[in-house]
């Protein structure tokens, strides 16, 4: 059992938790992930490591609330436990002195990108970061990313924060303006990473993406996570999760990502019918906690 020691709702659709997982915390490196299983009926699903504390033995995860598994996770309060947490899995990011590094992130990719920025910065890279959100209200951890960046940019997909723009638009303009970039790392939803790869391709700037394929074991035993990179079949869990975005067969990836949509809908609607009160419970709990804190 892995205890949740902290929980906060970062923005309306993203929850951040800190979990006791001493082994994982001890071995974690930027770019890696864990596999969770919330309860006995639960599925195994991957989550990137957004942070860790080796001394306290805790790891942090920021997740997008989407379907049954993430909803079950969101319904847990501080003090509750997750049944299984295994990792760190996947290959760590190759941290080298590349020169000028552009980090594009959005959604649950923001946490892992901050860890990556720290490690790259330490190696002497110049960090240019760009964070995206659909709207200003969905931005989080800007300060943390700004602190480790030499250049920091924010783009949002509506007009709530200046110009309407996504990370791929930013990359295109930035490269077109003649700025020197040696490598790009993109972390976010598959669509965002695909668009970033497309934007950088004409400029020939290597773009590393962190793929979020459907996984079961996360250790190379099932092939659920397989994708086509170049002409080859790769397992995202053990060969990745990071790959050259210009080589990834995005159509194949997205097709395989959509494999279980009807089942996911069915599972979620059944779960929600019986468990919606749990979400209300957590909301009430958080409200009370806030009140207590305000009253000192």
């Amino acid at each position, binding site marked *: 059992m892995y205890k949740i020691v902290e929980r906060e709702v970062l923005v309306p659709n993203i929850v951040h938790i800190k979990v006791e997982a001493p082994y994982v915390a001890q071995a974690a490196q930027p770019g890696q992930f864990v596999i969770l299983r919330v309860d006995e009926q639960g599925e195994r699903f991957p989550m990137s490591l957004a942070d860790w504390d080796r001394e306290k033995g805790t790891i942090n995860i920021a997740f997008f609330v989407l379907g049954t598994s993430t909803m079950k996770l969101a319904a847990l309060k501080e003090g509750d436990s997750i049944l299984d947490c295994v990792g760190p899995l996947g290959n760590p990011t190759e941290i080298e002195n590349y020169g000028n590094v552009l980090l594009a992130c959005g959604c649950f990719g923001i946490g892992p990108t901050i860890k990556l920025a720290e490690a790259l910065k330490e190696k002497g890279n110049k960090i240019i970061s760009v964070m995206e959100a659909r709207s200003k209200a969905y931005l989080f951890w800007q300060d943390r990313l700004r602190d480790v960046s030499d250049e920091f940019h924010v783009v949002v997909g509506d007009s709530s924060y200046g110009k309407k723009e996504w990370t791929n638009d930013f990359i295109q303009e930035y490269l077109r303006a003649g700025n020197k970039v040696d490598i790009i790392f993109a972390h976010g939803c598959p669509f965002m990473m695909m668009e970033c790869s497309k934007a950088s391709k004409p400029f020939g700037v290597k773009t590393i993406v962190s793929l979020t394929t459907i996984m079961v074991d996360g250790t190379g035993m099932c092939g659920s996570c397989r994708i086509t990179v170049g002409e080859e079949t790769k397992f995202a869990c053990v060969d990745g999760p990071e790959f050259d975005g210009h080589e990834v067969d995005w159509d194949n990836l997205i*097709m395989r990502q959509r494999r279980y949509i009807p089942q996911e809908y069915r599972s979620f609607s059944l779960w929600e019918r019986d468990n919606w009160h749990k979400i209300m419970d957590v909301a009430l709990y958080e409200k009370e906690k806030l009140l207590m804190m305000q009253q000192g």
Partner: protein
Amino acid sequence: MAEMIPIKERMQRDQVQMPEQDPQIRGHNFNEVPTGYTKEMAIYEAQRCLQCTPPKCVEGCPAEVRITEFIQKIVEEDFAGSYFEILKTNNLPAVCGRVCPQETQCCETCVLNKKGKPIAIGRLERFVSDWARENGVHEKLPEIKKKGKTVAVIGAGPAGLVCAADLQKMGYDVTIFEAFHASGGVLVYGIPEFRLPKEIVRYEAGEIEKLGVKFETDFVAGKTKSIPDMAKEFNAMFIAIGAGAPRFMEIPGENLAMVYSANEFLTRSNLMKAYRFPEYDTPIKIGRKVCTIGAGNVSMDSARTALRLGAEVSHIVYRRSRKEAPARIEEIAHAEEEGVVLNFLTLPIKVLGDYETGEVTGMECIKMELGEPDESGRRRPIPVEGTNFIIEADMVIDSIGTLANPIVPRSAAALGVEINKWGYFVFDEETMQTTREGIFCGGDIARGAATVILAVGDGKKAARGIDKYLSSGNSLKESLNK
């Protein structure tokens, strides 16, 4: 006590048949297919045994089960005593009684096999261990004298479990590290419920835990901690990680959404209980016409699972002939009875489908004929030109075998643990030691995909090897911390 019958009558009796669920019914449920001997059946069968000295049957058993002793105790109606006889050499009797290929082991060497009527040793083993489980009979062990030395076992499959049990009984302190959330290895994620109820694996692993073995699940050796770091904490190490990495045909269309590896299909269904979706969250897709490539036990399990999940047609496609099929005869028979269609001498060359939706529409195949024997001694299948045809299918399951998973070998390389060209460990047949002193291996990661009982045999052999290593005053961690 049941009566001892004269030798002549023993020879005349026929083998007691195993009662089974009707194929029409069982094809739609996940309950166990053979339902097990009754007490009367077991005694009647046990009475047939000639009690040979020395017993030929035992020569065929990699776990050296005390066959004559446990069968005699059945005749004496001392089922608890019979169970303890088995446990002396094998801690997974209810599992082995169900999944061992007895026809090529103890039953093959049994003297009565000359008449085609070997003693049904596996069924008796199953009866005794089921009886013990149902009646809450546990092994009473003498006080174990602790040796104050620790052993790490990596992988909780049959090899790891048995090695841990033996070492713990010798007085060592054993910790098993397992990547999955449950122990059992292939027994829980591969072999389906209808052949081996998971309840039984859990029970027998639980009995091993009661011996004092510590279990660390959710621990991927080589990732959660490196092998060199783990080695620094233990006096010896046993690696039994199986050979679970799936192989694909490498033909066009294999990355369509409706193409599964047998490992994924079976893991979803067995370990994750997708056959009980949506009560369990893990989804599984099932086609109406399912095509499984390969003819091993794993392929039969996949094809039969597909039927139970609702497939209307379940095909097996295999490039060689029935004679070369690696599955147990009994499993092929079970599959056929349930309606699995076997297509021999057929090689798939392409999966057809829609690259937008990921759906599969069929599989293009070519007919084969058998040529000269190849290096495996089996006649080499050769494609017959111009015989291409399409099998209609909306789901394909690749079941052509597995490979070594490189996570542990890569991490262990730093200590000088060598692998052969197929990625399996190089080891000493006598002690199961790898090329690094103090690190031992066994099961599928040593031999390539093999059988449960060979894994059990390796686990036992390695336990003896480790005992010898440690008794001579050696220690893995000391050798590293120097």
